[in-house]
């Protein structure tokens, strides 16, 4: 009996390469352990944070790619591991570590130090990891649901704040709606192809052409719509304002980076395999270009008049995804590497800004109104300087990393001869400078309003925030000045 089990087990281990999923398993099992710890001890908030970082560090280590050219599939071709998925997983774990550091003091000050928070964060990250390494639509769906369910709870984690609850519910309703689109699309594709595996869908499209089956075409478009919902590409962005506003700042920081990168991982993998399909579906390409243009413009317009800095940053994340989308339209390997570079840059500058915001907000998010930044440079020169650097980087001003990132994006767009798109993109980038500058105007050029009694005295840096800001700042400056090795490393990605 025992022999039978052990031979069966060996068989499973031999055919299914668990080592391939080491980072995924570490994070998923870690999430379960943290959940159990939280059940046993309600005071485990601090310990869980440390554990979460340790788990993410371990996952980061195991995700480091060893053989760049290798592509391995496992579990009946449900998941695969290649350089692209490894890079994505590295980005997710990095995001996770930074978000844990941002969250800790912020949530503690608001007495929402619920230990399960970190468990949920790890679940979300494991979902993202599965999305990035999936080779099958079912796997993608599982990944995105694991991610989303964790995010609903995270958005609503501040039970004392009605806005947070509202954010959670809104996010839940909208996201479920998007998931329905996604499932619909998957069903359509399965109906016409007979499989949900990426490669089978590709082969079908290559062999029969895209227009052979309306269901395949409709399915692909539905999947695009569902995913556009998840990364809030305009016009599918309408849920964003309230969710980003209502959710705790640390959750907003996570929402505006990690999940979007994960969805883009899927978009690149799934849509780029059709690039050799003849004839290439023009409507699909037109829709993708339109999404990019509308997203950039709408994101900018929404961010332009925001009084709340957190909300402004959240809206600007819509625009940033628009820039990545412009690269996505080009169907080139450069697009993949420049998008990955952009994400790396975005993680550092965005999370660096959010870390500073979590410090500036003290115990009340009302402090994040742009009016309350007046005169900060005189009182807190270092803080103001760091925030200025992050904002200028987000605006794409050289020599910060944001400029290098935009440079690679637009360079790939120009290489694909899409000049008009590049011009629209870069003009949007110039427009975006206005709202980032508004904060700098308030910090540096305006004097403090005496009657608000905002004296910045209670602003205190603690070790976690300092760590995030220091890492981000160094990355923003050094990768901005010397992006060479990173972009060269990323340009080895083959999809």
């Amino acid at each position, binding site marked *: 009996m025992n022999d039978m089990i052990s031979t069966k087990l060996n068989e499973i281990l031999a055919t299914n390469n668990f080592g391939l999923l080491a980072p995924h398993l570490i994070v998923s099992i870690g999430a379960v352990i943290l959940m159990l710890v939280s059940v046993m001890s309600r005071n485990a908030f601090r310990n869980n944070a440390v554990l979460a970082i340790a788990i993410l560090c371990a996952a980061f280590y195991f995700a480091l790619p060893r053989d760049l050219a290798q592509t391995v599939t496992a579990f009946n071709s449900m998941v695969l591991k290649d350089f692209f998925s490894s890079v994505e997983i590295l980005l997710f774990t990095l995001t996770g570590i930074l978000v844990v550091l941002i969250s800790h003091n912020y949530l503690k000050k608001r007495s929402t130090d619920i230990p399960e928070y970190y468990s949920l964060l790890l679940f979300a990250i494991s979902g993202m990891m599965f999305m990035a390494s999936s080779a099958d639509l079912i796997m993608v769906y599982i990944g995105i649901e694991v991610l989303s369910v964790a995010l609903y709870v995270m958005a609503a984690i501040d039970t004392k704040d009605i806005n947070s609850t509202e954010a959670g519910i809104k996010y839940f309703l909208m996201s479920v709606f998007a998931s329905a689109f996604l499932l619909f699309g998957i069903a359509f594709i399965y109906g016409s192809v007979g499989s949900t595996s990426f490669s089978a869908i590709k082969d079908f499209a290559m062999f029969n052409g895209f227009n052979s089956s309306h269901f395949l075409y409709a399915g692909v478009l539905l999947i695009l719509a569902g995913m556009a919902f998840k990364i809030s590409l305009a016009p599918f962005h309408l849920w964003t304002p309230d969710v980003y506003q209502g959710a705790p700042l640390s959750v907003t920081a996570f929402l505006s980076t990690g999940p979007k990168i994960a969805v883009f991982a899927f978009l690149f993998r799934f849509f780029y395999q059709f690039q050799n399909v003849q004839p290439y579906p023009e409507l699909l390409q037109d829709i993708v270009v339109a999404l990019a243009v509308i997203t950039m413009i709408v994101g900018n317009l929404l961010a332009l008049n925001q009084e709340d800095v957190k909300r402004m940053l959240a809206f600007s994340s819509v625009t940033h995804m628009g820039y990545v989308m412009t690269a996505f339209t080009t169907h080139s390997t450069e697009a993949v590497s420049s998008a990955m570079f952009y994400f790396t840059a975005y993680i550092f500058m965005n999370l660096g800004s959010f870390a500073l915001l979590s410090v500036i907000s003290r115990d009340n998010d009302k402090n994040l109104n742009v009016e309350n930044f007046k005169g900060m*440079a*005189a009182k807190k*020169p270092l803080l103001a300087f760091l925030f200025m650097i992050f904002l*200028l980087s987000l605006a794409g*001003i*050289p*020599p910060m990393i944001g*400029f290098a990132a935009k*440079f*690679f994006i*637009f*360079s790939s767009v*120009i*290489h694909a001869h899409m*000049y008009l798109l*590049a*011009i629209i993109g*870069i*003009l949007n*980038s*110039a*427009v975006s*400078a*206005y709202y980032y*500058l508004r904060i700098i*105007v308030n910090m*540096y*050029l*305006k004097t403090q309003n005496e009657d608000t009694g905002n004296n910045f005295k209670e602003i205190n840096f603690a070790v976690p925030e300092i760590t995030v800001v220091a890492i981000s700042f160094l990355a923003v400056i050094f990768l901005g000045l*010397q*992006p*060479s090795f990173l*972009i*060269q490393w990323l*340009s080895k990605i083959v999809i």
Partner: protein
Amino acid sequence: MESLPILSIITFLPLLGIGIIALIPGKNKNLVHAFITIFTGITFLISLFLINAFKADTSGFQFIEKINWIPSVGIQYFMGLDGISIYLVILTTFLTFIASISAYTAIEIRVKEFAITLLFLEVGMIGVFLALDLFLFYIFWELILIPMYLMIGIWGGKNRLYASLKFFLYTLAGSTLMLLAAIYMAYQVKLQTGQMSFSLLDMQALTLTPKIQTPLFLAFALAFAIKVPYFPFHTWLPDAHTEAPTAGSVILAGVLLKMGTYGFIRFNIPLFPDATVALAPFMSILAVVGIVYGAFMALVQTDVKRLVAYSSVSHMGFIMLGIFALNEEGLNGAVLQMLNHGISTGMLFLLVGMIYERRHTRMINEYGGIAKKMPIFAVYTMIAMLSSIALPGTNGFVGEFLILSGGFLRDHALGIIATSGVIFGAVYMLWMYQRVFLGKIVKKENEELTDLNFREQFILIPLVVLIFAIGVYPGYMLKTFKEPVRALIEMTSAKFNDENTVQKPNATIETSVEKKL
């Protein structure tokens, strides 16, 4: 000496200054000011060595530094100096030095931040004149925006928020398309040679059809035209100049505007010779419109600083006319006038700053008859003014004379209209002088005015010396421009000939038709 990367040293020396100033306590204002002066002074002195080591008889770049930076897209750290940029670099280090001394009494709040912005500005400005890789150039170009923005915004006048934001967004929006054009050209280099490159020299070697050159020319021209500022894009300038603190105005007028004209000379002409020749008439007309418009606007100003700002619009029009005359007289005059304008307008802004510190007003009607109380000040102003209106014997005369003769050679009508700008220039300047300095003292406040002190004269004397030195012996500078300018002329004159050769076949057809008839 040759192995030293002297250009990088000059460019990044101010960064060392920032590092050191960041360490000293900000409360001791004079100490911080002294440190700024020391570092800008050292940078200036080192840049003077360039004159000595520079070989004036070639058109190529010297002191070249070339290191691979982002090889995957062909970006290099590529710096070099030629006869056109050498004096612009020295003008930059010189005016920054002068501006730093002028700031002792003008800048009293947040001195440490001032030190950092001024020195950062210097890094960017020197870098712009030295960079020969378009990516590097763009970085330096944009690097200037933030310190200048902060300088206007923090230490500026009443309307500083509006002026600084306008300056920033205008310049940023204008330069973005230049970046796209540069990326496009880098890919063209890859198409034609197999290796992507942002190097100016590689891009010069490109063969681009005139049809492609025109949009690229315009993308670059927009960025530079805003900086110059060219006539319809000038609206940021009066605001920015008027609201900026004295040091900021000096640098804005003295150096930042030159970055635009320098850009035209360095990039537009050699990279797009066909488009340059094709668009030169259009650009010259806009330049002349700028000359006349700027002069008329200056005439009606009630604010002295705004008057000087509008006079800049007019004078920069002269420089653009010289550039797009595309002949030796015009281009030599334009390069020389870039330096002259930096000196004379820089000096005028310094003088306006000095009187503003005493009376805290810049309105012309608040003054009158102050020559009696401030005779030395009146003399210095007279000299700066005469240089600005191009009196023979001052530097302005040489530059404007060359430009006008170049413009006249290219197109008589434009030359004549532009010459009227000289007359209007004399009118608004002399009228302003009359209203401010001559006559009786009407306002009581002007009775207590004190004349210039030692520090203020110390700043002005070198400028006066330069005004007369260049005015009397311009050949010393002109000989360094000569070769690079000749190289530029050769590039474009070939295109003028091309146009003629294109027309010739038509002529032969016509004659053959005639013969048949």
